[in-house]
């Protein structure tokens, strides 16, 4: 087990390619993505029921143990969220080595 950070990002689905481009740029190879997440926040209810995909969110989970990369990731995510909404949470975890 090694200590790491869990980064959870909820962002609207059309912005996901932009987020993944950020991962590539920062050389973050690992993430998991849950599509078709509904939600509610400052910008109203998102029911994931529209054909444009506009009202659907995705939840992206990143485990990372490199604090420098994490800092950079947070910096890069902030303007994405500021423009189009969503949340980003950081928490502690232990990563099972295998």
């Amino acid at each position, binding site marked *: 087990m090694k200590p790491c950070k869990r980064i959870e990002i909820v962002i609207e689905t*059309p912005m996901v390619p932009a987020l993944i481009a950020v991962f590539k740029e920062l050389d973050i190879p690992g993430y998991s993505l849950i599509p078709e997440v509904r939600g509610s926040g400052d*910008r*109203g209810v998102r029911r994931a*029921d529209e*054909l*444009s995909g*506009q009202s659907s969110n995705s939840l992206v989970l990143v485990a990372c143990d490199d604090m420098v990369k994490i800092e950079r990731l947070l910096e890069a995510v902030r303007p994405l969220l500021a423009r189009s909404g969503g949340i980003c949470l950081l928490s502690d975890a232990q990563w099972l080595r295998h």
Partner: protein
Amino acid sequence: MSVFLSNLSSPPLLFFFLGVAAVLVRSDLEIPAQIAKSLSLYLLFAIGFKGGVAISESTIDATMLLTLLGAVTLSALIPVYTFVLLRRWFPLADAAAIAATYGSVSAVTFVTATGYLDMLGIQWSGYLVAAMALMESPAIIVGIVLYKYYGGQQRGAVQNVSWKALLREALFNGSVLLILGSMLIGWITGADGMQKVEPLVKDLFLGLLCLFLLDMGIVAARRFGDLPATKTTGSDGRSMRPLLLAAMLLPALNALVGLALAVLLGLSEGNALLLVVLAASASYIAVPAAMRLALPEANPGSYLTMSLAITFPLNLLVGIPAYHAAIRWLL
């Protein structure tokens, strides 16, 4: 009058009402999301293929080319005057997004109008499908350019929007690509190809349109229910009235402009109605998706609600027969 009634009592429209009713009585009736998406892909595929086959069977003439040119012009022009009209009542980004939304088209409104014509036995030409496909993109580009020009000076916004990504989104958007591609394939394979896919593309069309409109009724009614919330969440505390008014008046205005063009081009009754419907309808798939990327500062509570919850049902229920009556009166 009878035309209104026969429109309202066609199975697809009645299923739209059923969807609305389900939301009103707070039923849990719901079409699963992936099915709804696939029904929409099916409609684009079917209408595109049919249009392509129709083109393959007709000769390319001046009216056709002029109509296509006119349609593209319409899609670029509508956003300009819409933006000018709206910018004093709406935040700049919202005005630009609404302009793009109304310059573009709603494929389902178009499809419903073709069903309406088929029901009445009125002819229409396959190249109108091409016109529809061509009208999706220009409005998006014009909308962004307008915002960049007027808004950019003030706030330096949008500068980090990649134009390449934007153009790609405008031109190769999933729905644009599917309809253009299906049209091309229909055009290449012609009557031979049609014979092979007819049971899917033609026979099931109206039945599946019923199911799709059932879903649209649910989605539109939910959005309509969100309207009061839209008002209070607006940080600027503006009233909803401009939004409601714009969503009702813009289709009428755009229909007039479309009507003028149809008369100018000397289109037949059926084709004229389709062109007017294209002008009057507003996008709720391609444009909203593009706007989230290019203009995230615009509030989808404005442009999406307007097009989906007000303009779309309005065109479906009243617009199509009203435009038809106007055309009959003119021609």
